[in-house]
């Protein structure tokens, strides 16, 4: 019997309801995409968590490295003018 390490890893994204975007839910092993989708259904939506599923081969994801954290993310830390907080919100405007 082959072990689960022989099967590639897949990342699972679940859309919890219409209008929201897919959110990363976790990962699983499966021999191919179709089975990955079904395993995702069984593992991540069995308590009505979703209305749509994506599975992506983990190897297809290029991730930022923790070593690059400083150059990637720190420069944004002291630039508060990038936040839209310097505007007066006109009275009566909803959903802002």
């Amino acid at each position, binding site marked *: *019997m*082959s*072990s*689960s390490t022989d*099967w590639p890893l897949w990342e699972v994204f679940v859309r919890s309801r219409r209008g929201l975007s897919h959110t990363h839910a976790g990962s*699983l*092993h*499966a*021999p191919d995409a*179709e*089975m990955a989708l*079904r*395993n995702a259904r*069984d*593992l991540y939506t*069995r308590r009505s968590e979703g209305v749509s599923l994506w599975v992506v081969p983990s190897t297809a994801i290029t991730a930022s490295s923790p070593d690059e954290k400083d150059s990637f993310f720190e420069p944004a830390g002291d630039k508060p003018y990038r936040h839209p907080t310097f505007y007066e919100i006109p009275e009566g405007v909803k959903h802002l």
Partner: protein
Amino acid sequence: MSAALALGDDALVLSHRLGEWAGHAPVLEEEVALANIALDLLGQARMLLSSVGDEDELAFLREERSFRNVQLVEQPNGDFAHTIARQLYFSVYQHLLYEQLAAGTGEFADLATKAVKEVAYHRDHAERWVLRLGDGTAESHERMQNGLDALWRFTGELFRPVEGLDVDGESLHGSWSSAVTSVVERATLRLPSGPQSSAWSAGAGRQGLHTEPFGRMLAEMQHLHRSHPGASW
């Protein structure tokens, strides 16, 4: 005999067999898949058995000869391919049956309407595995064929008339055969050619005649309730 008892026992017994994979399935993902299917079936069993009596008494306090499930569902799990063969034979049958019942107006129409969606997934699960194992490695092909062959003689019973169940057994058998044949052929496997029931079956499960492994399964399934009547948590 009540048809609800027949359908309920099919679901209950197969649910227990699939539950036996917990902790033993080849991979974690598949273990959860089988447990999900088992829980779907358990839900169906509870609705059906509750409609004819106390579900706990029916599940845990009946003797072997009072169970009305077909012999197919009580067969031991064997290896994974064997379990998948059992799933293919049964879930295709159950899907076609529930489709017919859901389209009708009889006492099972409501249950079947809900359950047919669950069972469609069980069927899809079984068919995909038959394709993968049959058209996989030489070993998976051989094991899948062995599973199909070993369980073939229990499939005839599925199409015998059940009192109180208004379905056309002949057309059910026809649809079942062409569906199963199509999957088996696409999986590069061979449909078993022997008789679909054994000479000794004598009416079999629906009349309360069961195969040897069923008694041992019941002993395990019932022992907790029999040792501690009414236990709950």
